[in-house]
């Protein structure tokens, strides 16, 4: 009667492993339940809409909402700053000039021509 389910829940075999979302789902639900139970054992001192829920900035007043939000450009700033040498090279590549786009195309074609035809 439930034969149609069989192909749906069949395990996907890869070259050296397998993947079954059903198994993953069961493990995920069990883990979630465990976390939920552990969380339930915690202290129940939290009071909604009191000073507990206010933003605390070492006693300083909270800024305007717009100033509190970290803009996208600042996210991963350290990463991009540390790899500035690499990003500078990438930026030089991306000139936005369509002539350069064609130049890259010609370069790759030439390179392939040398490797595939001449060598």
């Amino acid at each position, binding site marked *: 009667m439930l034969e149609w389910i069989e192909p749906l*829940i069949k395990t996907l075999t890869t*070259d050296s492993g397998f993947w079954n979302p059903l198994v993953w789902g069961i493990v995920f639900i069990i883990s979630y339940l465990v976390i939920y139970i552990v969380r339930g054992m915690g202290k129940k001192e939290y009071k909604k809409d009191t000073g507990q829920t206010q933003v605390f900035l070492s006693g300083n007043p909270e800024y305007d909402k717009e100033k509190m939000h970290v803009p996208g450009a600042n996210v991963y700033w350290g990463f991009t700053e540390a790899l500035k040498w690499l990003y500078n090279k990438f930026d030089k590549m991306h000139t936005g000039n369509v002539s350069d786009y064609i130049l890259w195309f010609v370069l790759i074609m030439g390179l392939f021509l040398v490797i595939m035809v001449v060598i």
Partner: protein
Amino acid sequence: MNGVVDWLILHSPALIIAIPLLGAFLTILIGKIGPRIRNVFVIIIMAITSFLILLLVNDVFTNGIRTYVFGGGSTSIESSYAIRILFEIDGLNAFIAIIAAILPIVAIIYSWAFMKEHTGLDKYYTLILLMTAGMLGMILTGDLFNFFVFLEITSIASAALIAFYLDKQNSIQAAFKYIVISAIGALFLLFAVALFYGQYNALNMAVIANNISFTFIDKIALVVLFAALAMKAGIVPMHMWLPDAYGRAPASITVILIGTTLASLYGLFRVIFTIYGKYLFSFDSTQMALTLGVLIIILAVVTIVIGVFMALKQNDFKRMIAFAAIAEIGYMFLAVGAALSTYTFERGAAIISASGQMALKGGIFHIFNDALDVGLLFLVAGAVYYAAKETSLNKLGGLARNMKYTTVFFLIGLAAVSGLPPMNGFASKLIIYQSMFQINPLLTIVAILCSILLLAVFVKVFYSVFLGPKLPKFSGVKEVPKSMLIAMGIIASIIVFIGLFPNIFVENIVTPATNALQNATSYIGGVL
């Protein structure tokens, strides 16, 4: 009833092109009656086309290769060349056609609300149908010159749609770059077609594949075709048009552009595995297959790395997704390159190793997943722009409170494109990683690290756009209209479905496509 269905199946290859093509020109006339009727007409045309695609795909997966000869009768083979124009559909183009069936229909539903405020929508829908017809032609045709013609139709319609926001200078610039790149690519493709025609008196892919002798001119044609189609597919360092085009086109158009990019990638695979397959994978040429495989791997790794690194530093929502899309194309390319590099000659036949075959399967599977995942993310970016009139990650923030459904769709897209379980992207990337590890563990390490960086990219977007305090300037932002939610919901549902039941998809759709890719003889046998 069965007679009608049989007739539809029989003529579906022609109807799949003819219906959107005729629909495109009728749209202008229907548009005169009223926008609502025009919208219904366009969706009906696309629904019929998609239905026919599904009929054809089902027929191909059930009964094998389909050849449709235009002008009636069978193909005349005289002096080893085919006279008639024909469409030839095997597991591979059937697979890609499914993508082409889904993306335009979603884009049209999305456009109802997304483009409502704009003028010139008769032309907009006409161009969408024209672009779809071109894309489907590229996928279904068995004729190289036909491929060039459909590529041109797609490119011209795409360029016009990229420039749809006429009031924005960047859109016009992006469209100009796109048309220049497309024209150059198409010209070189035509040059390769001429080289084939000069040598073999044929334009039919199967006939050329059967006669190919890998002369000096054939090698030049391979290089030219490879470079032209790789550029159209967005392979680094020929990718630079892609962030411009994807980033500046309306989000609904970007979704179809993904389909056209994948159609070019399909063309590239067809050239390598089918047209050159018979010779490239023969005893004399396994070294050539290895060289080509290694070159593809190098380009793929560069594509993934540069795509991800450039995405990480972008501060424009759509441009960021565009670079992530480039990285995703790298994954497919990597899998194909790895498979090529494992070609060996055993017991009189050229075979791909088991790991190579699995990598190929993962790569093909990832084509489908990429179209859906990146497509969904672009629709979300469009929804954010529609609601907040902003795409800069520096200015957006806190939108999860106002746009709950869009946020959920973004999270689904984020998980899928970053390869997080249980989404579809995880299943295909897992296949690629595991098979690649058998071929070269270093490639797997690079691929996994870049996938983690891809997750970081979209976590940045999630934080910048949806999280953070509620910004006063966006207090009036509301959830997008239902048609846009439905469009995003359709793609998200397919993503989740494939993610939860990957095996059914791999067994029934991906495996036939992979087998077709490896079997050039069957493709040739479909005509000769």
